[in-house]
């Protein structure tokens, strides 16, 4: 373990995130040179744009309105999902916990499926998915409340049950939708996650939620560490376990629900990235959360770049295909020392 070098790791990951983002902006079906991409991007930055003249026309549209929002949304999604996953794993003290464990993805999936089935406009679809995702989590919370306290084991099982219920309903809608229309494909695309239709107005909504959410999770990171020793000892150490659990669970569900609403269900990132981060910097949450956030951002834009290179394969497929072998590699290297 290289805990002492956390500062360097975080600095390195930040640089890597920038490099990946810039590289990603130069990849696509349209033939736009590296130099053009850089000039166009710089010309969009206030102050700098006074000194930059960039090409107009279609290359500009492609870089500014297609590639950049996609990359930024990818970073936001990567950060949100990884941080949400880290928090969930911390609260549940379970390596199988993911942002979707309380039914966010299945609930959002059902909302999206209903939306596609009814032909709800593109504008209201994320709202519908968001509301059903949160509604599901609310139900799970209600089921998980035992005598005024949130019982983690009950919560886990309630989440499992709701996941099955919502997925079942989604499958039913998918099966019932006519094969000649887009509905089945749209639902499938949502289930696999997609950054293909990212737009700036989605970023205006998701970015503030991400910032507030990550800040909240980070603010309670010390309490999260203490909870790892068991809720009993946490109470003895003066940690308000109930509040910590509540804030962490609500915040991470909100982060995940927001991302599901706008990008569909991008799997793997929220489950595996926290493990990868734990292998790098250890289980201490003050280090773990920023590391996981940066790794999530890098990983997701990397996957989305590959998805674009391969002709717009849904990014959720790439995250799993690329992430799993990497994770297995990490696992083999660190057997018995996974930070748990």
């Amino acid at each position, binding site marked *: 373990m290289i805990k002492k070098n956390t500062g360097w790791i975080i600095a390195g990951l930040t640089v890597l995130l920038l490099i990946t983002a810039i590289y990603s902006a130069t990849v696509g079906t349209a033939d736009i040179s590296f130099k053009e991409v850089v000039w166009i991007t710089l010309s969009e930055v206030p102050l700098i744009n006074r000194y930059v003249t960039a090409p107009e026309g279609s290359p500009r549209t492609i870089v500014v309105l297609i590639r950049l929002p996609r990359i930024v949304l990818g970073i936001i999604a990567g950060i949100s999902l990884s941080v949400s996953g880290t928090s969930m794993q911390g609260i549940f003290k379970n390596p199988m916990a993911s942002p979707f464990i309380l039914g966010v993805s299945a609930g959002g999936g059902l909302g999206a499926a209903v939306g596609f089935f009814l032909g709800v406009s593109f504008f209201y679809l994320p709202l519908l998915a968001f509301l059903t995702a949160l509604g599901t989590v609310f139900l799970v919370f209600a089921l998980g409340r035992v005598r005024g306290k949130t019982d983690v084991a009950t919560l886990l099982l309630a989440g499992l049950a709701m996941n099955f219920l919502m997925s079942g309903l989604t499958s039913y809608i998918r099966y019932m939708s006519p094969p000649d229309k887009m509905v089945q494909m749209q639902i499938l*695309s949502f289930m696999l996650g997609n950054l293909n239709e990212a737009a700036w107005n989605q970023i205006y909504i998701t970015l503030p939620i991400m910032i507030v959410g990550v800040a909240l999770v980070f603010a309670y990171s010390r309490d999260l560490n203490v909870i790892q020793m068991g809720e009993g000892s946490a109470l003895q150490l003066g940690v308000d376990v109930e509040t910590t659990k509540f804030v962490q669970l609500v915040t991470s569900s909100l982060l995940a629900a927001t991302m599901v609403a706008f990008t569909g269900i991008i799997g793997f990132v929220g489950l595996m990235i926290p493990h990868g981060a734990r292998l790098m910097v250890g289980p201490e949450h003050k280090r773990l959360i920023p590391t996981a956030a940066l790794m999530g951002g890098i990983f997701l834009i990397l996957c989305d770049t590959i998805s674009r290179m391969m002709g717009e394969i849904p990014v959720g497929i790439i995250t799993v295909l690329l992430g799993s072998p990497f994770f297995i590699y990490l696992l083999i290297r660190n057997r018995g020392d996974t930070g748990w």
Partner: protein
Amino acid sequence: MMRKITVIAVISIMLVGLFAVLPRVSEADESITVTDARGEDVNLEAPPERIISFMPSNTEILFHIGEGDRVVGVDDLSDYPSEVNDLPNVGDSFNVDYEKITELEPDVVVTPSFNTQMIDYLENIGHTVVATNSNTLEDVYTDMRLLGIMCGIEEEANQMADELEDEMNEITQNTADLPQEERVDVFYIASVGPIYTPGNHTFQNTLIQNAGGNNIADQGDGWWEISKETIVDEDPDVIIATEDLEGQVQKLSEDDVWQSISAVENDEIYYVDDDIFSRPAPRVVEAQSTLTDITAEHLGIEENGEENGEEIPGFTLPILLASVAIIFTISIKDKSNQKDD
């Protein structure tokens, strides 16, 4: 004084008149407003020089009305006419290549109206979108007129649409209005395992109806999965399947249950070109006449339309003579039936 006022008045009236006329003069250029399938009024400064066609039927219509040279990009499924294959592909509805679309700098993107997600995104990044419905037989004519207006050839396109409609009516004149009991039971297979079939309110259902057929699947709406039990129960006289399913349908028909179906027993399975039978495009004429030829045999009606489809076994002279005789009886019967209605 009076004169001065008069002069000022005259001059101002002239100026007002001039300004009223001026915009019209500049508008007298080629600007076009087309109301598309969404009911949206799309304004174009001029007939589009660069069109991206995002649906095979739209592509076929654009080429049919003689505006194919304006098409600069098509979706992956567009493959007719053959010159389309040289054009850049911009993805399919599932994976739209927005970069490629933008790079081609189209004046307008013609899309199917149901893909609202794609339309919203395209407009968001600054493209002009004209949406078509491309579902029913009527849509062939509607889309043709709509795209005609878009290309600034409204009159010609209307005329072509009328001609196409006339041609279709001619092909189906003897079969379209047959009473239910005289119709041939037709089963259309669009996919095998699960077997999907076009029910009511589908393009294929209309073609079958017009050809004097009775679609055995019309109790369901749209496309649906039909069970073996229903197929056996309905016992179709004719099975129409798409060419790519030939091997699979043959395999299926070896099954004992399938052997009990009249169409299988009598070897009345016809394989048709899926593209022609599924696209609401001008080639619907070929689909309709192929289908009418198939049903004609069962209805005892003289073949209509142009060339026979290759799938249809050649008529022998006696059958031909016999059928001519039957037509007379049927057409008389037909007329009396119509009066009954």
